[in-house]
């Protein structure tokens, strides 16, 4: 009798705890559904061709988001182009040349901290370096560089992870043929890990295309059409930030539409990154 109550008690506790876990999961997923549903609900209404073809204008002037979209494209592309080679090389060093060196341990530690460092601090850093001193004023190039600083740790991390996954036998085969490390990396390791490396870059692009905080005090924003990298440049997240806080309903509508566009792009990027990994992160 005593045994059976003890057993029942344990069983009951088990059921209660596990039900709570299931409830937690449902609770966590509900937010994803609610946020996405709300975003589509509010954003789709404002989606029209003029959003993509008109420049930002005054309230009530049927403005669009053309210059912020172009600005975002320019700065995201440039940020990726600057950040990716540095990240790729650093990751290569950690996985290949400095595999057993103390420097690698330090770099890995610092890189992991940079990976989660507040992006607003990176914005301030670039402000001090490029806006207050280097270029001397707010500019598109400062925005691109601040995004590049965010790209680097993401790419470093995935590059190191992916290169260490390349089977040792491939390296041994390459060494047996007399290949130096550079040729092994270029012709064997990068090829075997190419899908994984592309994933890292895609994740980095996904990360920076929604970044707002660092752009506020580097690229600043621009209500006019400008592709000059030395001038302030508009970006989609920054326009959303400014428009959402405004009192005009058409600005708020544009902010929702812009938010929908960004979320769509970011989700597409992360989903395709995951699919590439699922198909073949590292060929073995």
């Amino acid at each position, binding site marked *: 009798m005593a045994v059976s109550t003890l057993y029942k008690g344990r069983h009951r506790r088990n059921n209660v705890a596990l039900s709570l876990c299931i409830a937690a999961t449902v609770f966590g997923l509900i937010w994803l559904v609610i946020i996405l549903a709300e975003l589509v609900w509010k954003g789709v209404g404002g989606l029209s061709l003029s959003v993509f073809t008109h420049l930002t204008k005054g309230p009530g002037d049927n403005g669009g988001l053309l210059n912020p979209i172009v600005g975002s494209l320019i700065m995201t592309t440039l940020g990726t182009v600057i950040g990716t080679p540095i990240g790729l090389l650093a990751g290569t060093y950690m996985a290949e040349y400095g595999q057993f060196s103390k420097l690698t341990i330090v770099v890995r530690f610092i890189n992991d901290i940079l990976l989660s460092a507040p992006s607003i601090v990176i914005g*301030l850093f670039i402000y001090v370096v490029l806006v*207050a001193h280097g270029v001397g004023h707010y500019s598109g190039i400062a925005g691109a560089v601040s995004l590049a600083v965010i790209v680097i740790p993401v790419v470093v991390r995935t590059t190191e992870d992916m290169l260490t996954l390349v089977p040792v036998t491939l390296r041994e085969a390459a060494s047996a043929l007399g290949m130096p490390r550079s040729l092994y990396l270029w012709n064997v390791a990068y090829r075997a890990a190419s899908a994984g490396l592309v994933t890292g870059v895609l994740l980095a692009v996904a990360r920076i295309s929604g970044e*707002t905080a660092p752009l506020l005090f580097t690229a600043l924003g621009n209500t006019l059409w400008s592709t000059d990298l030395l001038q302030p440049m508009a970006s989609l997240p920054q326009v959303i930030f400014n428009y959402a806080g405004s009192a005009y309903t058409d600005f708020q509508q544009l902010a929702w539409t812009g938010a929908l566009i960004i*979320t769509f792009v970011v989700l597409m990027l992360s989903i395709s990154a995951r699919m590439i990994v699922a198909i073949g992160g590292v060929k073995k």
Partner: protein
Amino acid sequence: MAEVAVNSAAGTYARQQDRSRALRWFNLTDTTFRLASLSAAVFVLLLLGGIIISLIIGAMPAFQKFGLNFLTVQRWDPNADIYGALAPIYGTIVTSVIAMVIAVPIGLGIAIFLTEICPPWLRRPIGIAIELLAGIPSIIYGIWGFFVFAPVLQQTVQPFLINTLGQIPGIGNLFAGPPYGIGILTAGLILAIMVLPFITSISRDVFESVPPVLKEAGYGLGCTTWEVVTKIVLPFTRIGVVGGVMLGLGRALGETMAVTFVVGNAHRISASILAPGTTISATIANEFQEAVGDLYTSSLIALGLILFFITFLVLAAARYMLMRLDQKAGK
């Protein structure tokens, strides 16, 4: 005959030439590649050094003017050019604590569900959904929180809290005042939603590092699933879980756009968590473009330095703990 000998001698010579040229080329590319990759790795270190040094340089005027009082004074008055960081520091810590109190149990619950209860075919879709939640840009959370979440809170949850918990002496002060909608509590709740995926995915990875043998031994002794989780999985992964939680905390402390929309941007410390407040990141994001005068800008950069210092400590501790778990798991 002689001709052939001469030819083959010339051929050997040419081959040797080729080979030494190829070797030189190999050496050159290898050295270049090694140096380039080494300098990129060193560059990552310099990046961190650069961030710290440039923030210190930028913050210098503010620290010279206010000294350590910058950290302890609540008054933030651009008109009088007097700046104290206490209110933003307080707001940053309180919103993050609220976020962690809510997100940690829920995140661990989801991780337990994913590793112990969930049928295998459902594991991947739910895992991916949680990770997508982590990928949504923070400005989306901000705009959603501002237009949708805050008004709902103002009409439902906050009046309820004021009428129930707010009436209890003592802790009632935490829930006093009118329902603003935006405020410290709302910012904390939004942060909780944002850090939930980080805590979930790290704890899931950490739980999966438990050797199956240990769990099987537990089940073999007749443990229930919950007993296996609390007596085997959690003790084994304790350091890793704490590391994951602190990683989430690091995110919460530095999160900017989501908080900026809903925290209320009021430079004061209120007893009530329903009242508007501000955080370090929200202050910088809101005021930087309008900051006139070197001291104002410098004070904002000083705020950034404080934020970086706090998050650096939290993240370093988190990484250290996760590294120790990896060593334990023999990775």
